[in-house]
């Protein structure tokens, strides 16, 4: 008998099918969300110190060299949001009688909450 033949993870990530690649990208997206939370921690820490230190960190964060990072991180954050809401649709079953409310059903309140959260953040930081 031949031992079982399993694809290696590098095979999954680089070729075979796009679905496995999307899976890996989805997992990696969590890194970028966490990274910006770390930036927030640094900023909040610097708020206790002199303005110069705080501004120095932001100058670094907003330097032109960092813009590609922000763009990539933003794309990954969007990927996370979309795939997470889709996943929620599969994990939570809502029934009405015999019918299951379609998987899209869970995503609608989730996206609505996303819009609300986004507007809230813009309002809070802009005028709060």
């Amino acid at each position: 008998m031949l031992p079982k033949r399993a694809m290696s993870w590098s095979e999954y990530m680089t070729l075979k099918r796009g679905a496995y690649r999307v899976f890996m990208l989805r997992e990696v997206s969590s890194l970028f969300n966490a990274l910006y939370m770390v930036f927030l921690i640094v900023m909040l820490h610097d708020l206790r110190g002199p303005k110069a230190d705080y501004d120095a960190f932001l100058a670094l964060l907003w330097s032109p060299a960092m813009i590609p990072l922000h763009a990539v991180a933003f794309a990954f954050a969007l990927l996370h949001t979309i795939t997470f809401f889709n996943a929620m649709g599969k994990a939570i079953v809502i029934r009405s009688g015999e019918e299951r409310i379609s998987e899209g059903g869970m995503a609608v309140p989730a996206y609505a909450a996303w819009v609300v959260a986004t507007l809230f953040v813009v309002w809070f930081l802009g005028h709060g």
Partner: protein
Amino acid sequence: MARSKEPIVWALFGAGGMVAALFGPILIFLLGIAASTGLLGAAEMFSYAHMRELASYPLVRIVLFGIISLPMWHWAHRFRYILVDLGLRSIRLLVVVACYGTALALTAAAALVLWQL
């Protein structure tokens, strides 16, 4: 077979995923893209004076703690599985401790920083 204690970290993973999904895009857009390219006056939102004013409210700090720390647990859970599945199966206990340990350390750092403001 014993029922796993995994729900503890899975609940954190889920909560962290939800927080990251809701707040991640807008925060990264404002703090990263908008502020560095001068859009929407975003740079002003994060100014020293403005942030100190916002952070002066205890409720803001509590909410910030949740928004900052939960995505760490989401990352830790996913990263743990990436590493274990990519072949670090033999040292998976070490991987578990390293990943969740990092999340715990960052959570503590967030708590400390917010407490001291």
